[in-house]
């Protein structure tokens, strides 16, 4: 019985001062040289939060500029650098590592009943590699920026741009190795480190989704690495690879870039799907509906995602037949995502649902991801994509998936596991308020952009015809609400570190091995290796929540 494991893994007396991974050792050295997956997860959390702030500031300045058709704030040159910085930082230095490197690092060993990941030193090295990439990127931003967009299309990036394209590409190149090593570490950990009785079909769905993500990390990231390296070679040494003036082929770059960057979308969204499966079950106290369908849909997404890259190139000059094949495959990849949405919704049926902040984020995720996914069909469909490609419709679509999906889930997951990570509970009322503000601000920011795109406003425009102003002002107003929504959690989460209510081992009464050990956990995670005897989400044996808020 796992309930036995619960008892064995808790300290005998709660009166003793508790030793945990946070207070076991002190000092900067103990953090910078740590091999503990939980501390490394926190190092990542700090790093990506900083990068999120950088990317967020760029977004804020962009939205301010777009209040006026002629540009309210900056010159076009600066605006171009702002959207490039925003894209590069948010995609490569925030979203890609967001859930896997923070929550994934923290939770994978805890969830599968292991002491640590398979290669702790490699794990620390991954963080140092990532930080090197971040520092290089910040250096580029501070010394003049880059203006190619996050897509780096040549020959503009290789032969025409006057900004520091090479260093920016190298920053991404370097950070990519962190992805590859993390992915490898996770795959081995999930294969080899599971506790006795933790069979594949007893794994929490968060683990399945991170397993699928890790496969994309390992198989996809080398392609973007070599692509950016070739771009650097062409830019520095003028070897003709992509620039037709040098004998290269610019479409070759687009094929290689999207071969990674479309699966990368699923690197960002698969882990969030995993988080949502955990949250929905915990707050409706139900076993997940269709476990194997949810699990295998993650793998289906990972596989098919490698075969749809050409849908970014329907108007690029790619052949009509290639367009047809990529269109049908893109419709196909929508199906497993739909299956997940239906299964989450069905899980709520006859549940015992409560609405703490993490659950609000989870429900918000389902709604926004549904819209994000369905609007993807407009872009998979050939004749509508011709009109919408390269417009604000695309911007709105991927922000519904990346922000409405991935960031909502990240916030939900962070709140859900915050008591486990820090041993403290944040003020729930503030958290629910912030979740609501983020939901409203998000929709106000990005919904008008669907209309703007259909009306024909191209993306990456520093200035625009006056008839698009109303919707742009609406979007900028929404962005300011969204910004407030992101600042509030930053404040109360920090506040809770010192003043938050002390959390017990399992404040939500949730299932999963991570809730059977103390909060914050010991450096070793468990006093005794847990033995698993039941499937995931067996809520019939779950303890009652310590705090019930309805």
């Amino acid at each position, binding site marked *: 019985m796992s309930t036995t494991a619960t008892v064995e893994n808790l300290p005998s007396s709660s009166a003793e001062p508790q030793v945990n991974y946070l207070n076991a050792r002190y000092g900067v050295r103990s953090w910078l040289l740590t091999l503990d997956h939980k501390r490394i997860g926190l190092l990542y959390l700090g790093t990506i939060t900083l990068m999120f702030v950088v990317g967020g500031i760029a977004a804020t300045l962009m939205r301010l500029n777009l209040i006026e058709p002629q540009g309210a704030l900056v010159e076009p040159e600066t605006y171009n650098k702002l959207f490039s910085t925003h894209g590069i930082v948010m995609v490569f230095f925030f979203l890609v590592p967001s859930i896997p490197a923070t929550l994934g690092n923290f939770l994978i060993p805890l969830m599968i009943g292991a002491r640590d990941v398979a290669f702790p030193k490699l794990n620390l090295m991954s963080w140092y590699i990532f930080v090197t990439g971040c520092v290089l990127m910040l250096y580029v931003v501070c010394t003049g920026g880059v203006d190619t967009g996050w897509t780096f299309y040549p020959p503009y990036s290789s032969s025409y741009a006057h900004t520091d394209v090479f260093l920016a590409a190298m920053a991404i190149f370097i950070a990519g190795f962190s992805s590859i090593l993390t992915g490898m570490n996770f795959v081995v950990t999930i294969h080899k480190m599971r506790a006795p009785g933790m069979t594949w079909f007893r794994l929490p769905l968060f683990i399945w989704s991170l397993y699928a993500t890790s496969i994309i990390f390992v198989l996809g990231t080398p392609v973007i690495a070599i692509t950016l390296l070739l771009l650097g070679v062409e830019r520095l040494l003028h070897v003709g690879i992509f620039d037709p003036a040098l004998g290269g082929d610019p479409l070759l770059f687009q094929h290689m870039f999207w071969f990674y960057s479309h699966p990368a979308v699923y690197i960002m969204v698969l882990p969030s799907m995993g988080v949502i499966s955990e949250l929905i079950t915990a707050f409706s106290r*139900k076993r997940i509906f269709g476990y194997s369908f949810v699990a295998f849909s993650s793998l289906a997404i990972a596989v098919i995602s490698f075969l749809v890259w050409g849908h970014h190139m329907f108007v690029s000059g790619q052949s009509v037949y290639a367009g047809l094949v990529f269109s049908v495959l893109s419709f196909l990849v929508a199906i497993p995502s739909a299956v997940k949405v239906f299964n989450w919704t069905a899980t709520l049926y006859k549940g015992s649902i409560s609405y703490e902040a993490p659950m609000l984020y989870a429900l918000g995720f389902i709604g926004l991801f549904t819209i994000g996914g369905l609007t993807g069909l407009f872009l998979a469909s050939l004749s509508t994509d011709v009109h919408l490609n390269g417009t604000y419709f695309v911007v709105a679509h991927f922000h519904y998936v990346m922000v409405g999906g991935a960031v909502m889930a990240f916030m939900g997951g962070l709140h859900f596991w915050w008591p486990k990570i820090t041993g403290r509970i944040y003020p729930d009322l503030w958290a629910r308020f912030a979740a609501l503000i983020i939901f409203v601000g998000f929709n106000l920011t990005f919904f008008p952009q669907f209309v703007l795109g259909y009306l024909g406003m191209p993306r990456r425009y520093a200035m625009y015809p006056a008839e698009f102003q109303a919707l742009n002002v609406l979007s900028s107003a929404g962005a300011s609400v969204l910004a407030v929504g992101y600042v509030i959690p930053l404040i109360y989460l920090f506040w809770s570190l010192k003043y938050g209510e002390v959390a017990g081992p399992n404040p939500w009464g949730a299932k999963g091995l991570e809730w059977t050990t103390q909060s914050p956990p010991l450096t070793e995670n468990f006093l005794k290796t847990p033995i698993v005897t039941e499937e995931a989400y067996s809520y019939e044996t779950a303890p009652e929540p310590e705090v019930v808020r309805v």
Partner: protein
Amino acid sequence: MMGLTQFAFHSMAAAWLQFSLQPPAASSIAKNVDEVYYFLTGVTAFFTVLIFSIIFYFMIKYRRRPGKPHDPETHTSMFLELSWTIIPSLICVVIFVWSSALFVRNSRPPANSREIFVIGKQWMWHIQHPEGPREIDALHVPVGENIKLTMTSQDVIHGFYIPAFRVKKDVLPGRYTSVWFKADRTGVFHLFCSQYCGTNHSEMIGWIYVMSPTDYAAWLAQGEQSESLAQQGARLFTQLGCDSCHGTAAASTGPALAGIYGKPEKLADGSTRVVDDSFLRQAILTPSTIHVAGYPQIMPTFTGQVNEEQVLQLIAYVKSLGAQERTNGQ
């Protein structure tokens, strides 16, 4: 402060007047594309409302009530799993077939299209009419006629986008891409660059003037350039000395060009290629990559000597040779 509020109010009111949810639809395909768009919007709205309603219903009906027992077990239903896999798949098949058929139909320019050339360069659109007139950031076309644009770029990738026509195509350096449309009402419509191309990308915009056939004829007639594109090409052809090898004499070193356009040409490696714009462009700029059977491969490259406009002039000239021969033959 008063002024600011007033200003804000004024600009919002002005903006509201311009508020529209639909772009103008001014081409033969715009309506068809919009039908797919509205169907997709319907599908999106239906499923979004469905999911939201079910979630809200469950949220209220199954909210946690202390002391009320519930069954944490779920009973997975294969029937449900299959239905919500198969039904969305069928909807996708319908959209795919419908939308793709339209796309394939729209991707081939009709044979009787009027051809106009477009050259994108940072940060302007250079339009070249075969009759001679050149325009910058403006394109005049007659209503109701099929227009085929053959496009290339002098520098980076651009995107030729006319929202009102629902057409868009990337414009690449080093090759020709084409797009076609038939405007079905007169008016003035936006032309945008849809592929980020550097500092003034957002200023690489222009206007499409759709005119009645008579107005268009008048506009063409008053064009400042009296020489047609083919005539300019003919001049260039002699200037560059092309005629010394590709002349009309029977003993020429290179293939004779009269009547060659649009016909298949045998290459030294045994394959055949149809002589089209891309073929001629490649033959002029990188002749070492094309070896026509029966001729020595001695043509020098003209890369650096002619720009994209001049390549188009030469192509127009070669094309006109074909037309002349056909006229003579009849």
